């Protein structure tokens, strides 16, 4: 493109861009710098938080057609379709609920799960909770976690620290082992049939035995498309692990 045409196009596009920006919205502007905090140390919207929401939506979308009565349970209030930026009570945020095999399941994003025994609650990025029976829409109790996903967004490569959080959660929640014909294998595609650290980063080599022992995997290069994304170790390896 000639210099003059380029500069005219640049100015025109810059004007259009200026018009498209929201007039306010300090929060999302701050979010441009990933992990930036307010002066009081309160973390704000980060790429990681958006990626977490994207992964949660991806799991929920994968459930369509596989389960019954899949629905959104909103929180109270005008802005009921809200998800947490930091761990919060399940009663204060939206989640997905569905029925399968005669009981209810909840797919939650970042909400706390009470551990009892005076222990502080934990808030996995994404949790699939099973109830012992069918629940009413107004019932917002936590169920038993049967699968967890930890979303990790990276500018570059993943690191071993990415699996530490999941290691911790899997230890605490004692997730059920993967077995042929279990509910995960019936309702979800291969990508989500095992609890996992989901990341946009390339494959990270970590101790597979430890992952199998803790009952989770890593799904790498995930940017929303479920096609061709398989957990490592695979579901079959988990099923064979004693």
């Amino acid at each position: 493109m000639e210099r003059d045409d380029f500069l005219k196009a640049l100015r025109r596009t810059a004007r259009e861009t200026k018009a498209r920006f929201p007039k306010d919205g300090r929060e999302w502007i701050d979010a441009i710098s990933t992990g930036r905090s307010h002066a009081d140390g309160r973390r704000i919207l980060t790429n990681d938080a958006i990626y977490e929401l994207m992964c949660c939506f991806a799991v929920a979308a994968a459930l369509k057609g596989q389960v019954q009565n899949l629905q959104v349970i909103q929180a109270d209030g005008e802005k009921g379709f809200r998800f947490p930026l930091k761990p919060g009570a399940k009663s204060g945020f939206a989640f997905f609920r569905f029925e399968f095999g005669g009981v209810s399941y909840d797919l939650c994003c970042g909400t706390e799960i009470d551990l009892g025994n005076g222990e502080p609650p934990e808030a996995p990025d994404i949790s699939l909770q099973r109830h012992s029976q069918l629940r009413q829409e107004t019932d917002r109790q936590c169920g038993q976690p049967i699968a967890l996903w930890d979303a990790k967004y990276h500018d570059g490569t993943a690191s071993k620290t990415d699996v530490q959080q999941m290691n911790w959660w899997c230890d605490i929640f004692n997730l059920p082992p993967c077995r042929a014909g279990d509910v995960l294998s019936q309702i979800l595609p291969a990508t989500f049939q095992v609890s996992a650290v989901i990341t946009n980063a390339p494959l990270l080599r970590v101790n597979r035995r430890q992952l199998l022992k803790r009952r989770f995997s890593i799904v790498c290069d995930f940017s929303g498309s479920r096609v061709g994304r398989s957990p490592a170790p695979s579901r079959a390896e988990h099923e064979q692990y004693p």
Partner: protein
Amino acid sequence: MRENLSKRGFPNYPKGKSHYPMHFGAIRDTAIENNPGLMLNGTFRPYLMEGEQLVVFRRSEGSVFFFATTKVESVEELGTASSPYQSVSLSGLKPFDRERELSVLAGSLAKVYRFLYPERHFRRAYVRLSPEDYRTIVEDAVDLDRSVFRYLFEALPWGLRAHFVSTCLDSDTFSSDGRVKDYRQISRALLDYLDGPFLQFAKLLTSMSQQFNELQGIRNLPALSKLTVSDGEQGSIELGQVVPRLREIAASRLFSETTFGPALIEEAREKLESPTGTENTASYHRTWNETIF
């Protein structure tokens, strides 16, 4: 007249003058058409000087085009002390080989600070110019680094501008009094910023909204515009309101390849890295003594 100009058409300063020996300006064609003995009056009457160098511009469909130069041959002061006016005689117009468009030169002129709407600076019939601005117009000499920077920087909301500047503070971009040291450096830094953290954020939001669209059909699913994230204490961010706008920006010609060609941000990189062009695409680096805001 020709002997008073440099070989590139820039007036030579008369010797023996200590400061600012000549005046420069831009005058609109309608002010001099059929007005050989140019009469200038009114409250905002400019004070033209004999020997002043003028560039002549015309306005067309909101754009400004510079098409010739002229010179103030003589000035006659008329009227009274309370109501003065001048009768000005101009030399014949010397047309440029081709018109210069303000939207091309805006980023290279100190006169302009509304870079996306530079025509606003040329609403009046006469506009005073600095010698450097006059030279820039006459020589059609674009400062590409400053132009790219100023157009894109102006497009950002204040919060993003401030954040970009904060990312530059550790580098050698600014002098201690906050002036831009080198537009070559800061223009590339801005491209990196837009292409990096900003675009990454916009694309991630776009991916998230695409996943949201996959949810269609789920019972009680609200519209995307209702999507909110909250820290539970300090209020919420209406993410659904932001997504469509950033999606549009990410998909715009600035960041995405279109039928018109590659993304302008890529084109900008290419232009900034290529050596200065031909006679008609001159590019040079003026010395700018200014702050970023």
